[in-house]
């Protein structure tokens, strides 16, 4: 990974110094060994701080929104899964292709510090990964963990190492984690529950929400100029009305709104401070779309129209969907 990071720095510096791009979106070292943060670099010199390791989960595609607004040609480092987000933003016309320089960046799965800590590890100073083993150095000594045990949840549903969009690629592609069985297994487990239990489950989940809006801010499909939740004229009552609708139905509406545009990056669930399993709602829509209207993956390109803006004459009836969903 260090080799890749070095190549990335080199590429960033080249691009900036040649004037090919005006800024580079990447990651900057944090204060700890595992808290890298997204960052925008505007000079070759600043790129010294550019890092890349297993703690760069953030999907940088959404930074391109601001880049387009500012009309700044921006190089962006994209892990394979992040490329879906860029395509979706291009499809939604939120990002202009001319301002994007997409750099495919290899990934072998990002790590979840919470899972590492759950092994009782404290005082972590350095974490490295090789050959499926995560070596955690702490002030108390070193411990090895199997990589699969401490991958981020979203990496367990990895879509593979192919880039959906890339102007150039950094280094060789790495082997991404094997996806864990059926992507919709979790959805199916809920579907199999009796209605009362399903309701209870969601009531519990949604009760945790503190409405911090992190989920919507991170989402590459949530890119409206103004969110309907902030618009009093929208069909959901805005905050100004203090109407219970917004609060009660927030998650349902959010998921409905990104259905067909959600690329399944899993960032919403990752950034949720309350650990609400809101990715499940998105997955449910993805599953339904696949079942009812044929396989569809948002972000695999920037042109295929979303299922909600197309139709066939023989589409399933809503009444049947109420039944089918039960299976």
């Amino acid at each position, binding site marked *: 990974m260090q080799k890749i990071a070095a190549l990335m720095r080199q590429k960033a510096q080249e691009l900036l110094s040649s004037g090919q791009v005006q800024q580079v979106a990447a990651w900057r070292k944090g204060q700890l060994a595992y808290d890298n943060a997204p960052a925008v670099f505007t000079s070759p010199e600043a790129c010294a701080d550019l890092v890349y390791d297993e703690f760069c989960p953030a999907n940088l595609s959404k930074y391109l929104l601001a880049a387009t*607004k500012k009309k700044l040609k921006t190089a962006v480092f994209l892990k394979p899964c992040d490329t879906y987000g860029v395509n979706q933003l291009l*499809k*939604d*016309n*939120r990002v202009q292709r001319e301002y994007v320089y997409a750099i495919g960046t290899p990934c072998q799965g990002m790590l979840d510090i919470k899972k590492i800590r759950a092994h009782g590890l404290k005082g972590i100073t350095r974490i490295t990964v090789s050959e499926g083993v995560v070596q955690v150095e702490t002030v108390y000594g070193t411990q090895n963990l199997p990589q699969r045990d401490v991958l981020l949840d979203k990496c367990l549903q990895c879509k593979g190492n192919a880039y959906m969009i890339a102007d150039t690629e950094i280094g060789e592609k790495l082997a991404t984690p094997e996806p864990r069985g059926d992507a919709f297994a979790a959805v199916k487990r809920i579907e199999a529950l009796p209605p009362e239990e399903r309701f209870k489950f969601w009531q519990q989940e949604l009760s945790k929400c503190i409405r911090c809006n992190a989920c919507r801010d991170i989402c590459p499909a949530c*890119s*409206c*100029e*103004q*969110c*309907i939740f902030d*618009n009093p*004229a*929208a*069909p959901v*009552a805005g905050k100004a009305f203090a109407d219970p609708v917004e609060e009660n139905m927030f998650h349902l509406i959010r998921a409905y*709104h990104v259905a067909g*545009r959600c690329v399944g990056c899993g960032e919403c669930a990752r950034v949720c401070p309350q650990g609400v399993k809101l990715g499940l709602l998105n997955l449910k829509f993805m599953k339904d779309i696949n079942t009812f209207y044929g396989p569809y993956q948002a972000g695999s390109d920037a042109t295929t*129209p*979303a299922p*909600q*803006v*197309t139709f066939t004459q023989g589409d399933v009836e809503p009444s049947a969907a109420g039944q089918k969903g039960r299976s």
Partner: protein
Amino acid sequence: MQKIGVFVCWCGSNIATTVDVAQVVAAVKTIPNVAFAADYKYMCSEGGQELIHKAVQDYQLDRIVVCSCSPRMHEATFRNCAEQVGINPYLVEIANIREQCSWIIKDRAQATAKAIQLAKAAIAKVRFNTPLTPGESKVVKRALVIGGGIAGIQAALDIAEAGYKVDIVERQPAIGGRMAQLDKTFPTLDCSACILTPKMMDAANHPNIKLYTYSEVEAVSGFVGNFEVKIRQKARSVDAKRCTGCGICTEKCPSRKTSSEFELGLKTRGAIYIPFSQALPKVPVIDREHCLKFQTGKCGICSKVCPAECIDYTQQDEIITEHYGAIVAATGFDLLPLDKFGEYGYQDSPDVITSLEFERLTNATGPTEGHLVCPSTGKEPKSVIIVSCVGSRDTSGRGKTYCSKICCMYNAKQAMYIREKYPQIDVTVFYIDVRTPGKAFDEFYRRAVEEFNVHYIKGQVGKVLKDARGGLTVFASDLLSDKHLMLHADMVILATAVKPAAGARKLATMLTASMDNDDFFTEAHPKLRPVESPTAGIFLAGMCQGPKDIPETVSQAGAAAVKVVGLLAKDKLRTNPCVAHCQENICSGCLACEKVCPYGAITAETKTVINLAGVKEQRTVAVVNQTLCQGCGACTVACPAAAMDLKGFSNQEILAEVDALC
């Protein structure tokens, strides 16, 4: 502060009997912003409208809610009324307390409570209403008539005579339709061809009329004033411009086994044929399915014998795209197939025929040159039985629920015709009711009985059997003498139910015109707008709208033509202002709206907008063409940001109604 006036109509006793209008008035008076409320016997009357005018002036009202009948009935009336007194017509809302309330609820308390709630919803909505101004759209001064039967011909002639261009699209190779197949017409017994042929000639020769025969409408887009229609002109394999109609090709064609559509299978025709002798245009067509040249590559005789050298085996279907301001649907009728009515023996005996087949058997140009003979023997029948209501007035699912309307009269006509020309033939008509409303109609039917001795028996036929002697045994009932009958007949004529022509449903879908469950086009109002479809710019003539005879069809065609002319006479149309509009500062430019718009009314434009932060920026936004937009609202829901909204049915307006009702 808004000042809303609420006007509650009694509709005579229609509303007031079940809805306590005084209570409605009292209830709405307590609602904030309601500055005036009153009830009146007939709000739509002059007195009612005066009441509204006066209240507006006396109380400075700026919005109006009328609690009355369906807005589909009088919304326009009250909008005009408001406009006269200076209120924008779109600041008027109707609460439908008649169709949705007093007429469907018997309990007075319940009806009153519902009326109050409907009034509240309308008041809630009207608060958010904004003044709207209709736009304008141009009118293409050309009409399309779909169907070249008597309805289509008459409509086209009337439109053309008024000075407008009109095209007729006819599926068959010639115009004329069903009327061309008839022998005589009631109630005058004049020859159908004698009165139709001149009209066909007029249509074919009129400088304003263009015929597209052997053609079908393939696609329709656009809207009133400017429809774009794609017409498929099927390949005739004959160059119509050079053909002289000499008919040598049709005589020499060696393939003669195809049953003639025009003769209803009572005769065969060649693979190259002219459907009937007076056909217009008199240009043959090659039925490629039965043509040896097309099927085997050998033959080509027609090409060799054609003196004008106009046979063209390479001809292709042609797609013509044309624009029209108005469209008349005149697609006519078919007969109900009789396969589910085996008891009448239609499948088993050639001497059991439909009334339409009978027309061909008595027609001088028909398969028997007008000699009435039994198809099985070629001999004149001695007795004929006519069965009415075959497949009509049938709610069992086997037939059609409606009365086919024309049968009683043509039964009398056919019976009379037989008795007049062949007095030795005995004719019996079995009937359920004889329905003869119409000028000189009952007299006509009575003549059949009184002058021509046609036996009319109230009763029906239950079974028709072929018997060994080559005749038919008919089991029937005579209800007036309470007898079961077993009769012998040589010919049985089935007065078969009519149904809209095949393909009418497909056409209606293209026209976005509505249809009833029997596939008849529905009219905008059954009494007051009988020749208009609810879809603006689509007019109806003839059987496609419901069973009717020739005089009615001709009158309807004329009426439709007047409506068309009235439309084409305008240079511009006021467009519906209830259209979509995009709030550009929050439009993200995702263009989901554009993808769902059926009219192509939404386009992407790069514009300078002031964003929410107050900063000017250039970006792609959706822009609605207010003339193209028809106001369905599909885009408003596709828009994730609610930047797209629909005037007159805005998010806020609908939500206000939801909130008021819940």
